[in-house]
């Protein structure tokens, strides 16, 4: 078997999983019980590239790399296009010039640098952050439907943000901070409520749904109790969009996503093992609860930070990892591919939102909601069908 190495003999926890026929994440599994079929487990994996250095090993699928590169290229292309189109159209050549720092005629330089460039960066980064978050949730919960939107984290961020707007008439920075705190607190509450000698996948989801329902009601109450102007401001935030994205948003978002993304990649081994089965993971040397808590922390932080900057952009966290998974197929964790796909999705959604009903600008969250949801339903149908026979 290509790529099969030797398992560590010193009793440490780093076992080369290719000996098992590959890690569990790509296996078809039952949606409820999370068990991969024996056939899938035994299926040989081929083509994996494994890099080793001392005790550390890294594996990557060629297909995953290809998908990531293509998605990344698409994201960049979309990014450049989004810089060119708009109410003030700019030829692509000028866009490239402006990006490279060469002098550009007219106001193009200003438009590109001050308005569209930060917006594009925010779009790509928030998409990547949301997709990463969703990918981690789906693996921890062993369910393709788990995502911060459905499990109540986004609802928590939304309620806090609306509360800041309605109760304290907060500034944008205060709203963003509120959303962050709200998302994190909600995640903590859900985790604690679902904790019973550990947090199993479906308990987490179900508790999340209940908590999300309560938070949505609170948000509705806040919207009812405010005057029309405040309501419009809150509703604009709730729709989720990139309209106000500027340079002050970029450093925090990009920095946090980079750090948390790196953390996710470092934890990818634990993530892979957590996705198999709790008992199996424990036998393989993973301390299950701490690993799960750490991984969920990263996922929640990613979702909360992205939501605090761009508002609740629904379905990206749910759909992007699934798209990446389908493209990469027999793949590795596909976290990086998910992030790239997420970036493409948000950039494209923002483009559509800006231009579809020009000159009216829709919020990007509505576009992802309306377009993403039917796809979600198809995914759900397929996942339920395939999962049972896997």
């Amino acid at each position, binding site marked *: 078997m290509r790529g099969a190495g030797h398992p560590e003999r010193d009793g440490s926890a780093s076992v080369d999983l290719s000996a098992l026929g590959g890690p569990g994440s790509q296996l078809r599994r*039952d*949606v*409820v*019980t999370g068990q991969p079929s024996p056939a899938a487990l035994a299926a040989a994996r081929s083509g994996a590239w494994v890099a080793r250095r001392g005790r550390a090993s890294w594996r990557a699928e060629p297909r995953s790399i290809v998908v990531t590169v293509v998605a990344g290229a698409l994201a960049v292309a979309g990014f450049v296009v989004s810089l060119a189109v708009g109410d003030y159209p700019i030829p692509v050549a000028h866009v490239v010039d402006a990006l490279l720092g060469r002098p550009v005629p007219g106001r193009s330089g200003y438009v590109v640098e001050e308005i569209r460039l930060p917006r594009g960066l925010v779009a790509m980064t928030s998409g990547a952050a949301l997709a990463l978050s969703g990918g981690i949730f789906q693996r921890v919960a062993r*369910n393709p*439907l788990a995502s911060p*939107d*459905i499990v109540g984290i986004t609802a928590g961020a939304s309620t806090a943000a609306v509360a800041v707007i309605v109760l304290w008439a907060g500034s944008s920075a205060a709203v963003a901070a509120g959303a962050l705190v709200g998302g994190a607190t909600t995640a903590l509450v859900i985790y604690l*409520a*679902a904790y*019973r000698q550990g947090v199993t996948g*479906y*308990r987490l*989801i*179900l*508790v999340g*749904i*209940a*908590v*999300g*329902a*309560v938070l*949505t*009601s*609170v948000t*509705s*109450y806040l*919207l*009812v*109790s405010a005057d*029309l102007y405040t*309501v*419009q401001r809150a*509703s604009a935030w*709730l*729709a989720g969009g990139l309209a106000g994205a500027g340079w002050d948003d970029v450093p925090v978002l990009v920095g946090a996503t980079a750090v948390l993304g790196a953390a996710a990649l470092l934890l990818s081994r634990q993530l892979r093992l957590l996705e198999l089965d709790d008992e199996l993971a424990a036998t393989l040397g993973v301390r299950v609860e701490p690993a799960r808590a750490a991984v969920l922390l990263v996922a929640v932080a990613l979702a909360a930070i992205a939501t605090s900057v761009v508002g609740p952009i*629904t*379905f990206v966290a749910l759909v992007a990892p699934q798209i990446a998974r389908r493209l990469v197929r027999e793949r590795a964790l596909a976290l990086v591919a998910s992030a790239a796909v997420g970036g493409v999705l948000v950039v494209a959604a923002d483009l559509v939102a800006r231009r579809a009903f020009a000159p009216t600008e*829709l*919020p990007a*969250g*509505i576009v992802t*909601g*309306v377009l993403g*949801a*039917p796809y*979600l*339903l198809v995914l*759900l*149908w397929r996942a*339920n*069908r*395939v*999962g*049972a*026979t896997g």
Partner: protein
Amino acid sequence: MSTGGRSPTVLATDRARLLGLVGALALLGLAAGASVLVGTVTVRPGDVWHAYRGWTGTDTDLVVVHLRVPRTITGLLVGVALGLAGTVIQGATRNPLADPSILGISAGAALGSVTGITVFGVTSLGGYVWFAFAGAALAGIAVHVLASAGRIGATPVKLALSGAAVSVFLGSVTAGAGIIDVDLHDRFRFWSVGSLGLADREVTTQLAPFVVAGVVLAVVSGRSLDALALGEDVARSLGQRVALARTVAATSVVLLAGAATAAVGPVAFVGLTAPHAARILVGPGHRWVLPWAAVLAAVLVLGADVVGRVVVQPRELQVGLVTAAFGAPWFVALVRRRRLAQL
């Protein structure tokens, strides 16, 4: 449906259950009385008598006749409707976590109502309630079909997830419509969480016939639900026509939950908690669970409404918010208690 075998039913004989039901009805009477009397405008029992017997058109008379009493009656109807709908759903899907709002039916009814009001310009409840039914039916069908895909069929978790996903989808469509039509958004925000404050006499009189029809269907399906609880195969061997039973059950749910949601907006968790409380008290037989759940749900709705009116005076917490605040911890406790893989 198994109660887990942990605690025996509290009321074990038919006589006890009947007496208990009378007691529960008395409690309902108290709740209704509180609903009429409590609020920012002080109303005394004498004022109610005055409004109906010696009408002189004072402010209190108006409040009683046009606000309090319709509100109370609507709360009663909505409670009964949701309690029965929840019981029937839980029985028909053998899912203890079922509730019209969790399974997306409320969101479907909401979107249907919004469509009726905006696209077709129908503004009276008697008109757009039919759109609500259509929305509720379609959403329920979609959730059930989605969750049933696969060999295992519709487990509680899959149903809950499908319901949540469909609710989010329908919610974002409704929100999108609200963005495009700002006027709709302003009207709709008062309705996006269930509120009895919107109930006036017109709503009450138009709601009643649908609830009555739904109640009749629910009662009729009671016996078949007992059989279905034993499993499809056993039910068939007992002579039960499973498909017919399910259709009757589904129709009653759509009527009850759809009409209730069209009238006052989505009220969450009532359909979940009332049947469970009823089963704890009188056991799993639907002959008793149905009336008990109806009464308990009505008490819950009226009680939540009164609490909502009192807690943040002079403003008001909508009934949907209060029921969510009480219902969610119950739901969480349920999830923690049961071993769901077996259901």
